[in-house]
């Protein structure tokens, strides 16, 4: 699916990099522990997280992730948005909690990729 489709499915708002809305998302990863995210490389992946700091953007950057979704309506501060803008990583905010946001995406065909 595209980021645009993903955004609709989880009723998200976009905070930056609107020009990337048509980029493809192929897999997803949901975690608040960044090292768990860093353990599994997937291509064209979206990161869903309840964590809201610069290191989320750094993690996505190192992993070449396509976008970040903050769950439960959490809003990152301006420095985090600025960093994401600089790195060209779209930030989205969904009102859904982690489990529901992941469930919505999963049931619409977005899967986690290999876990081993």
């Amino acid at each position, binding site marked *: 699916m595209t980021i645009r489709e993903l955004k609709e499915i989880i009723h998200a708002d976009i905070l930056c990099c609107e020009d990337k809305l048509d980029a493809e998302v192929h897999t997803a990863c949901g975690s608040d522990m960044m*090292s768990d995210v*860093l353990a599994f*490389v997937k291509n064209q992946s979206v990161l869903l997280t309840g964590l809201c700091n610069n290191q*989320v953007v750094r993690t996505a950057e*190192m*992993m*070449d992730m396509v976008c970040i979704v903050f769950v439960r309506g959490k809003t990152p501060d301006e420095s985090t948005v600025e960093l994401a803008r600089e790195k060209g990583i779209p930030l989205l905010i969904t009102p859904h909690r982690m489990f529901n946001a992941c469930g919505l995406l999963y049931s619409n065909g977005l899967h986690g990729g290999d876990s081993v």
Partner: protein
Amino acid sequence: MTDVIKLTYKVDGEDFTRAGEASSDLKGKLKKMNVPPDAIRKVAIAMYEGEINMVIHAHGGEITVEISKDCITMVLADRGPGIKNVELAMQAGYSTAPDNIRTLGFGAGMGLPNMKKYTDEMKIDTELGVGTTVTMRVNIA
């Protein structure tokens, strides 16, 4: 690219929000040098975990990177407390990080295992009360 390119980074041990700047800068430089994306990602992830460790466990330090046509070598040196039991520290899930670090998304005890996983060679030299030097090499396929 026949020469060896050498870079050095200072890692500020007091500012968690800035941790990762060195890895980010290196990633950008490797991209410009047309290093294969797979190798760049391995280097970036391994160095990022190492950089985070320097900040959360060792009050910062210095990173030197050597880029040759066959491989990228990263040397992360700190004057932190050292690691008492390296074998234990290498185990997935082992962490001495305080709870406030966990609320920031790190301290799951996966850093060193991840660094090992993404590099072709990794060596830890450490001495209690003196510091730790982690050397990692990623081959360019």
